[in-house]
């Protein structure tokens, strides 16, 4: 195996730049001294990458590094900078004239849980009858063979949160963090999601008041929950649910609430504050109306950028500049709404820019801010020690005329193929005989 990689195994952990550059220099010296034979043995793993010549948005700094090199070793970013020499043994990826960003993070998806929307046998995100509430943990059913993984990976999405959908209870269950290359499940029980939007009102018997009351009561009881003393009445959460809710409350993980109307967003802020939970508002059509309160609470909003319709009476204040207004007030803005087509997250972020969100903040909402929101460490940035999730784009990643030319996940070059490209290849020339191509 790669002798050098073991020796420089430190590169997998973050360390200061100066030390890092010293290591690089050492490697260069070694490269001159070692006989060619050793390189033949050591190099062919192609494990290490040098992405050269690109305009690199590191998300550490608003300004890009122009004509920069990103070095990747052991699945991590080893170094990034202009005039950085690319070691001989590194596989070169030419990004001249291209843009390089961290891989995109989809903050709210059902990847690996739902293959085909209307086919219930392929949908493990929607709990229709089973009496599980906050204990519902989707990580048991994640499908690493889902066709959504290569399709969305080709569009530059490298990590995602995958969540239960609204089922039979306002608290739908626990979502998981997944990776779209390599081992699929990154972390189970990453966040708890509840649905309090207009569509979910029925889940608590038809009233928003009842839905909120159910949550407030359950959270209060869960924080002092003891299995031996808990006597659930009809319709109350089971011991299993209460135990899960208690574990969640003490975990420090984010509480995700799908809620649109300004009044309920305030209630959601109160609930999260009462239990010291980080709040992520999902959708939040009227979040802009309570942006100061959201900012003060340190909440994030996963904005549905295209959701400017007064789609329900909870969303009468929906507007295209929701993201811009929230950002201006200091609220963390991430994105949602693409579902099966994660590629459209870029378009949504682009439209947020078209309606006032600064470009770099839009990119951050797909990368760094999303990683921070979901507690993903060393993700969503290009800096030494960070996970090497990278995308080389043909142009501005927020443009609808741009595509991902190469995707890298944890240092691995991802195949730019999917079931969709196979269908394209099969049918691009209809004169060929059918069925064996």
């Amino acid at each position, binding site marked *: 195996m790669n002798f050098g990689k073991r020796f420089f195994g430190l590169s997998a952990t973050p360390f200061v730049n100066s030390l890092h550059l010293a290591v690089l220099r050492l490697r260069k010296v070694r490269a001159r001294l070692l006989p060619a034979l050793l390189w033949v043995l050591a190099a062919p793993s192609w494990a290490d990458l040098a992405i050269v010549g690109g305009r690199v948005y590191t998300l550490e700094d608003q300004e890009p590094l122009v004509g920069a090199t990103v070095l990747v070793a052991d699945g991590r970013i080893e170094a990034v900078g202009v005039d950085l020499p690319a070691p001989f043994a590194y596989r070169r990826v030419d990004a001249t004239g291209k843009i390089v960003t961290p891989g995109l993070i989809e903050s709210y998806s059902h990847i690996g849980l739902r293959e*085909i929307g209307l086919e219930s046998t392929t949908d493990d995100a929607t709990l229709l009858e089973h009496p599980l509430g906050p204990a519902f943990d989707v990580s048991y059913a994640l499908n690493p063979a889902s066709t959504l993984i290569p399709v969305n990976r080709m569009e530059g999405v490298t990590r995602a949160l995958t969540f239960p959908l609204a089922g039979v209870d306002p608290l739908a269950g626990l979502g998981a963090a997944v990776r779209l290359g390599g081992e699929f499940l990154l972390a189970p029980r990453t966040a708890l999601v509840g649905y309090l939007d207009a569509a979910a009102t029925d889940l608590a018997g038809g009233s928003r008041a009842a839905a909120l009351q159910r949550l407030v009561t359950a959270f209060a009881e869960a924080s002092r929950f003891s299995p031996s003393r808990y006597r659930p009445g009809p319709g109350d959460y089971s011991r299993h649910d209460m135990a899960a809710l208690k574990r969640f409350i003490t975990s420090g993980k984010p509480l995700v609430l799908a809620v649109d109307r300004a009044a309920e967003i305030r209630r959601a802020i109160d609930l999260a504050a009462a239990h010291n939970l980080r709040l992520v508002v999902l959708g939040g059509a009227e979040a802009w109306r309570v942006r100061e309160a959201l900012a003060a609470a340190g909440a994030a909003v996963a904005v549905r950028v295209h959701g*400017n319709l007064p*789609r329900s009476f909870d969303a009468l204040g929906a507007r295209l500049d929701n993201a811009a207004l929230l950002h201006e007030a200091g609220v963390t803005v991430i994105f949602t709404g693409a579902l*099966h*087509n994660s590629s459209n997250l870029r378009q949504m972020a682009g439209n947020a820019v*078209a309606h006032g969100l600064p470009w770099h903040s839009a990119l951050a909402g797909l990368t760094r801010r999303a990683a921070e929101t979901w507690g993903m460490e060393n993700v969503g940035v290009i800096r030494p020690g960070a996970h090497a999730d990278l995308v080389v784009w043909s142009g501005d990643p927020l443009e609808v005329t741009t595509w991902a030319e190469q995707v890298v996940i944890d240092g691995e070059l991802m195949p730019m193929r999917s079931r969709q490209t196979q269908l394209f290849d099969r*049918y691009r020339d209809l004169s060929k005989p059918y069925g064996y191509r």
Partner: protein
Amino acid sequence: MSNNSMPKLNAVLLLAVCLSIAGAGLAAAPHESTYAPRSAPTTLIQGVAVLTGTGERLERADVLMQAGRIAALAVAGGLDSAALQALSAGSGEAGRWNEAGGGQERQQEAAPVRIINGAGKWLTPGIIDVHSHLGAYPSPEVASTADGNELTDPNSAGVWVEHSVWPQDPQFGLALAGGVTTLHILPGSGNLFGGRGVTLKNVPSRTVQGMKFPGAPQSLKMACGENPKRVYGEKEKAPTTRMGNVAGYRAAWAAAVAYREKQRKFQAREADAAPERDLGLDTLAAVLDGEILVQNHCYRADEMAVMLDVAREFGYAVTAFHHAVESYKIADLLAAAGVCSAMWSDWWGFKLEAFDAIPQNVALVDAAGACAIVHSDSAEGIQRLNQEAAKAMSAGRRMGMAISDAQAIAWITSNAAKALGIADETGSIKEGKAADVALWDRHPFSVYAHAEMVWIDGHLHYDRQDPARQPVSDFDLGQTVAGEGR
């Protein structure tokens, strides 16, 4: 209305009644459009980049709109200089071009001519969405206004979606801000025969009649595949299978052929009585007569091929397959049959019949020489059909296909007009066509582009800089903050 026009009107009514009794010519006569173009001052856009919709891209052009039509399109500086001088001066000479309306012409002689500097901007034909449910499925989405699917019988060919359209749907104004000047409203796809669709001008109006595109043919919405068999499968009545779907179409067409034959015999005095009036069969008979166009919801390639057989069997034409996510598999057959495909850029996987959708569908259909259209079927998507076309173009380019922007703009303009039977009137920037155009602040295939101004029949209906030119529906009053849009 003056008194002396009354007898004439009575005569028309009498004729209509006679025709009704005769059971003939029922498709066109009633429920006519009352749309009247608003004032259309002469407008000159100078030095603008133009995607004509006819496959051309002009880097710098002058476009003259007068009396609601495209009066001239020329390379910048190419318009007749005397005419331009007159326009610039806003003199009486220019006034001659103002207002089509007869009596007011003299009074408006001195009306100023609007000259717009188009430098750095882009002009396209007004966008046309061939598949929309605005008004029939309005916002807010509540049961009391969800009026798009008459799910009481798999054949509801007798319903007209225009009778469901709520003109105060706030979604119309949002689509206008996205450059949409014309839209075709269809009934839903729960039935084999969903009913008649209607083409609307995207103008504020108290009545749906005031939006109806004058002279545009109605459509018949048909639906293949999962939806009808699911809807009626759940009710445990036919159809519950795809073969049940096809039997349902064929039975209805056979009845329509017989109905039409009875009408023909009555008119030819070979029979004593006209067939009893049947609203559904009226619709189907009008399709057989070529007066109503078939817009057929159909995802899968194999089902489209079957529908072409059904059409051949009964002697009608399919104008367009909608949601045709698998058109790329039979693009050659569709080109040969002369059928349009109305497609999304990238929707897939939300149901099994959409599992084989690929983002190159539109590009492959276009490359095969078939008529390709990008449609929305969405009150969000209709606001940015320009971006959807851009995505479809880019997906093709990503795989090495050569597609120009001038070609791709046709997917949301001229090809769409063709599928609605209104291509002679709108959908391209060409002398003599209706002045239905959108001015963009940058290339319309950029995600950052905004429609700055939108004209319909030469009237400026939308101006991004002027709140007074941004329609607000009744519903939005008191719901949004004045001066702030959605």
